């Protein structure tokens, strides 16, 4: 039996376990799903811890599926970056699962409907694991679709018409995005004859086809990551879902496609990227920061504030790409900022994951207590729901990037990298983004301290829900402390700290076969 448990098989278990959970939960009757689901989620957490441990010990793990080596077969690759994302998924997912268990037993939307949450959520989880492990472009397409369909299904779980409309918009955007991605994959397969990322990176030549393929893949993934101006589907979808679902969508699902972009950008696209390509993606990110924050400031409903805030916070992630894509000529001067930019972006992922999940869960509590999520329902909350207000406060601190929090560390590293790379034009965006974030976070908190004229009686909310929200918010603060450990883990990966040396512009005159 020892062969079953050896470290090489770890990537397999990461996919198999949640999938097994999903199918078991599907077969179980509705009333048993909650408890079983939480057990599977906790087991996922243990698995994630083991994964991180092994990656720290062993380094990059590779597993060829079916005994067929690429290019014929599919390989899974597990490195520090994926281990970290898996760990974040496990922690956020674990807490959200507990929350969901309590939430769906308390708020009986419709038990037949809400019990669908569990198999879908585990399928989504399995998809995320598959995504973090994938090393094959077509396999990525399939898992992206698993994630996409499961995510939309979860988003419409509430059954409200608003959610349905938002969900359909989300689904169509997601399908169009992944088909654009697949078009790019097809072009690349035609050019290289392989699908494995590593092999393709060796064979890929710059050229018009490669460029168009990259543009298509990137475009498709940017839609799914909701980067400005392709974010139109996000605010309605995230704001109309049930709170645990909103938390999953914003904290985990968005990060999945970002992970793919990050991986492809550094491992595959390098041959054909120019300095301007990086700058253009950076401009999108910067616009997202400003536009998302601006929209968040204007919203009247809390869930919409938080959803628009996701657009802005995702924008920060895309400031990484201009920093690590520099002209080949400029690299001679050293590029010590690259690891900083990398870990900054990864920290932004972690911090946003924790903080945003906490935010949505806390607003879920608020909605349960007051019956709506209008801003005014925050009035005098500091006295009435102190724990939840505190959770919102802590999550807000991390979102703004105030010390001591994960968000602070992310901004610190990003800003340091920006300044040392000499691309100072991103600085104002980071700062203005922070200020605007402070604006909408304190716009909410301010109300919590204000008196309310006619105070409706609050419905009682299970303490467990409040604790879950607070736990994640505290997590957003605490992740600042093991930074050195996290960076060590990331350094185990081959790609970490990589600078994409953008070549000279490719002349578009060359002719095909």
């Amino acid at each position, binding site marked *: *039996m020892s062969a079953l448990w050896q470290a090489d098989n770890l990537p397999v278990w990461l996919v198999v376990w949640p999938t097994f959970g999903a199918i078991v939960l599907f077969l179980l009757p*509705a009333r048993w799903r909650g408890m079983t689901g939480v057990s599977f989620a906790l087991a996922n957490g243990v698995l994630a811890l083991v994964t991180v441990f092994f990656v720290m010990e062993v380094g990059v793990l590779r597993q060829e599926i079916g005994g067929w080596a690429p290019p014929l077969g599919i390989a899974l690759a597990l490195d520090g970056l994926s281990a970290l994302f898996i760990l974040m998924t496990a922690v956020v997912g674990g807490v959200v699962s507990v929350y969901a268990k309590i939430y769906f037993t308390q708020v009986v939307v419709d038990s*037949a409907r809400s019990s*669908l949450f569990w198999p879908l959520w585990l399928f989504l989880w399995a998809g995320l694991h598959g995504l973090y492990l994938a090393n094959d472009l077509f*396999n990525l397409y399939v898992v992206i679709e*698993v994630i996409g369909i499961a995510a*939309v*299904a979860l988003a419409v779980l509430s059954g409200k018409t608003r959610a349905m409309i938002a969900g359909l918009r989300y689904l169509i955007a997601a399908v169009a995005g992944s088909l654009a991605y697949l078009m790019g994959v097809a072009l690349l397969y035609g050019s290289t004859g392989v699908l494995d990322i590593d092999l393709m990176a060796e064979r890929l030549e710059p050229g018009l086809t490669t460029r168009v393929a990259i543009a298509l893949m990137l475009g498709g993934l940017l839609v799914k990551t909701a980067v400005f101006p392709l974010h139109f589907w996000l605010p309605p979808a995230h704001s109309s879902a049930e709170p645990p679902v909103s938390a999953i969508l914003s904290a985990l699902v968005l990060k999945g496609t970002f992970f793919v972009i990050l991986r492809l950008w550094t491992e595959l696209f390098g041959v054909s990227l120019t300095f301007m390509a990086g700058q253009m993606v950076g401009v999108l990110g910067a616009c997202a920061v400003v536009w998302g924050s601006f929209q968040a400031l204007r919203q009247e409903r809390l869930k919409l504030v938080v959803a628009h805030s996701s657009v802005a916070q995702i924008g920060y992630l895309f400031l990484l790409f201009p920093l690590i894509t520099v002209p080949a000529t400029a690299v001679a001067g050293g590029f010590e900022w690259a690891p900083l930019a990398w870990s900054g972006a990864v920290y932004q992922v972690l911090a946003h994951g924790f903080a945003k999940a906490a935010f949505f869960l806390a607003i879920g509590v608020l909605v349960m207590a007051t019956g709506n999520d209008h801003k005014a329902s925050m009035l005098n909350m500091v006295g009435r729901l102190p724990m939840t207000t505190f959770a919102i406060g802590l999550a807000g601190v991390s979102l703004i990037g105030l010390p001591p929090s994960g968000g602070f560390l992310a901004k610190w590293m990003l800003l340091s990298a920006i300044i040392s790379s000499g691309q100072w034009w991103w600085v104002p965006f980071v700062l203005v983004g922070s200020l605007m974030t402070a604006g909408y976070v304190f716009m909410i908190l301010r109300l919590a301290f204000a008196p309310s004229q006619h105070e409706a009686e609050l419905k009682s909310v299970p303490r467990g829900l409040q604790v879950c929200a607070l736990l994640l918010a505290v997590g957003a603060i605490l992740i600042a402390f093991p930074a050195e450990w996290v960076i060590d883990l990331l350094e185990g990966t081959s790609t970490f700290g990589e600078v994409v040396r953008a070549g000279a512009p490719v002349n578009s005159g060359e002719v095909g076969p």
Partner: protein
Amino acid sequence: MSLPAGLLDGLLALLLVILAVRALIAPTLYQCAVAFISFGLTLSLAWARLAAPDVALAEAAIGAGLLGVLLINSLRDFSRGGDDASAIFGKDLPTALFSRTVISCGTLAFAAVLGMAMFHMPEGGGLTALTEASLPHSGVEHPVTAVLLNYRSYDTWLEIGVLVVAMLAIFCAGGFEGFRRPEQGPDSDPVIESLARLLAPLMVMVAGYLLWLGKAYPGGAFQAGVVLAAAGIILQLAGWQIIENLSTWAWKWGLGIGFFFFLALAVSFMPLGLGFFEYPEAWAGPLILVVEVLATLSIGLTLTCFFVYFNGMGASESRRRTR
């Protein structure tokens, strides 16, 4: 390229583009659906021209067949209160002519760039040679089946998973898990019913044959599954209501069994030191056949369930309206 063949290809190409545009700008939804189904069938011809009989079968069965049925089935809801689908352009664009010109030019430019990219695509060489070299070890003789169920079985497994997820997702959209038992028997057409009696067993046999064929020839689990689903749909139309009368336990296992067994098989040789989805070479053929049988069952059942659920969504609404 010989002239008649080139002419045929050119004709197909033209037809495909015209039907695609037609499916998007037809004035009524019914015409859209018809154009789309014709498009799917034409596409099947194109696949055949491109030496892809497996794809042709899949496209005809699933892409045009099943989706066409679902589209037509949905039409009665969408066309209620007028079947006008003419407005394609956003209403705030200045003038129709202007916007049409802009959109057409934009689309053309995009297509031109994309076409250039395809035209300039280097010859990657593909994986034909490698597939052929490994075929003797794969346990099947048909290369596509070998790719689907051996070399890249992980993808195929996930894809069967997508079907299960999609079923759950459709439950979410419909608002309930499971199938409503009808309150009264639907009115069934005697012609359809007698036709169904004739066709259904035949289709099950065809499905079995396709499945068996898949080992060496085009065909296999997906195609067989769709044919099975077609049998199910015809029986449904004839008023048999198989799915609604199945117990929850039965349809759930039916939906899940293909995926579940595939997973079980994938890990079951790992204790022997083999990898995920790796089978002992001698057993590969029979094992793949078992997987295919179960997958066919699940796929057929899932697709039938799609239809039954769709039909039920509309039916429950029409009941509500008549009350």
